[in-house]
């Protein structure tokens, strides 16, 4: 039963790549926005917060469609990017973009919650010892929110592994290029007799995500232990 066809292997590899990149690329802006939302007051904060949550609220098809309109090669962002050689449409990078955007709210929330849990008194202590805001962030806040970042990243990774609606709407379902595991599963489910094949892929997808989840739990426990101090 676990013989995967070369195309399916491709889909596995692509899903992994997409989910990894989506997660990694979303992390820096995710951390930054989470920090801004947790610690700063600025005009438009509520709007930013709303924007971040948008992909959660909209049906994925709508998000995918919006991406297609804006990041497509003829879209207002896609066209100029194409000029400088960056193309998302119908590339795996587009799948990563879609997955990253869909996963973004989950990641930001998790990181934001951990930032809010950091005692500002520790950050103050860092400042009195000469660390500028940025250094305080890097040496105090960041290490203390590592478990939150990890939680955000794993949520994002899981979401990216499962993301389908926005991806297939934005970059279609081209084997070897944009066909991720969920898209492949979807295609199997559209025809008679495809269930067994779909199930195989579901199992693979779940196995990957569970492994990632387990690793993150172990890592997170390690971090927590260090901070608890022994």
């Amino acid at each position, binding site marked *: 039963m676990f013989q995967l066809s070369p195309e399916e292997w491709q889909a596995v590899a692509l899903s992994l790549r997409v989910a990894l990149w989506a997660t990694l690329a979303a992390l820096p802006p995710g951390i930054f926005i989470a920090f801004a939302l947790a610690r700063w007051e600025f005009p438009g904060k509520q709007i930013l917060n709303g924007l971040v949550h948008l992909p959660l609220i909209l049906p994925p098809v709508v998000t995918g469609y919006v991406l297609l309109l804006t990041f497509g090669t003829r879209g207002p962002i896609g066209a100029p990017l194409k000029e400088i050689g960056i193309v998302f449409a119908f590339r795996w990078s587009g799948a990563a973009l879609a997955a990253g955007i869909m996963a973004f709210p989950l990641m930001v929330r998790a990181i934001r919650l951990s930032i809010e849990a950091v005692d500002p*008194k*520790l950050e*103050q*202590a*860092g*400042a*009195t*010892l*000469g*660390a*500028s*805001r940025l*250094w*305080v962030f890097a*040496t*105090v806040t960041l*290490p*203390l929110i590592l478990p939150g970042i990890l939680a955000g990243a794993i949520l994002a990774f899981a979401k990216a592994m499962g993301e389908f609606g926005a991806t297939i709407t934005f970059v279609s379902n081209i084997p070897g290029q944009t066909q991720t595991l969920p898209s492949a599963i979807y295609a199997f489910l559209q025809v008679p007799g495809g269930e067994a094949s779909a199930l195989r892929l579901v199992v693979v997808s779940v196995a990957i995500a569970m492994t990632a989840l387990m690793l993150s739990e172990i890592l997170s426990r390690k971090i927590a232990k*260090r*901070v*608890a*101090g*022994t």
Partner: protein
Amino acid sequence: MSLDVAIRHSFGTFSLDIAFKAPPGLTVLFGRSGSGKTTIINAVAGLFRPDAGRIAIGERALFDSAQRIWLPPHKRRLGYIFQDARLFPHLTVRQNLLYGRWFAPKSGPQEPLDNVVEMLGIGPLLTRRPGGLSGGERQRVAIGRALLANPRLILADEPLAALDEARKAEILPYFERLRDETSVPILYVSHAPAEVARLATSVVALQNGGVARQGSATEVLGDPSVTPLGAGAAGAVLEARVTAHHPDGLSELTAGDLRLLVPHVARAPGTPLRVHVEAQDVMLATRRPEGISALNVLPATVTALRLGEGPGALVQLDAGGNVILSRVTRRSVAALDLREGQQLYAVLKAVSVAKDGIAGTDPG
């Protein structure tokens, strides 16, 4: 360098309105719990921005509401020992200690880590994280962290409160050295009369968010009309100098025309020293007593006499050019018929002086 502080702020029911000038050396802030000490220190550190006022070190303003100056904390070069230790839980003790080093300018004298670690007795903790440290261990690491940041201003909020007497005795000399040998101003909160007497160059007594009294340690502790540390703490601070070390373990000090014997002081002859003589340790005698164990029998003149409301009285004396206070009962005032101008003897045990009043004393 001196520190100028003048701030006004109000938190709901509590309002702070203080102004004082801390001369070079160590300024002790004291006052009852809730009187605003930590608030002032936080304002000096830049962790809290008062409604109005000015804070300056020498000519350099850290905060000036009129001129809209506000130096962020990380540019103030502080060594702040927090009332709650605030160690970084994710760093080892060693990393905590060296944290300030990353940001301090590399030039200038650097206190070696080992010295501080040894003084604080935290060598065995260096590789541990703060999570499992005891209260006192935490406090000591916090002291070390602040001192190792090469600060140009030290803020210490009850740094020794959680420590045992022996440990205090080991750390106090370090603060004395900082006070005497560096030009770093130190703002120090303490409730302990012994620490105040021993460390303070200047004392600011707070009450309900205002300055109740300010002056040099000698003035504040020697003024019979104020007893901000409680009646038990009234006392005189003598500016003395080590003159000799005797073979039987006693040291001889001179303060004005006075000669005092105290247990061995680990300082070279000629070193200036501050000696805190608590009023309650000074006995008065109208004739020179004989056959007694007290080694210091000092001829003195009564210069002021103040009867309290209770059974006690505070007697201010001049002894060889020094002001000394003595606390006696009213009954003794009557029995000895004490009057201003009276000549008598102040009797002082060597061990009483040594108790906590002298730097570098070897607790015999």
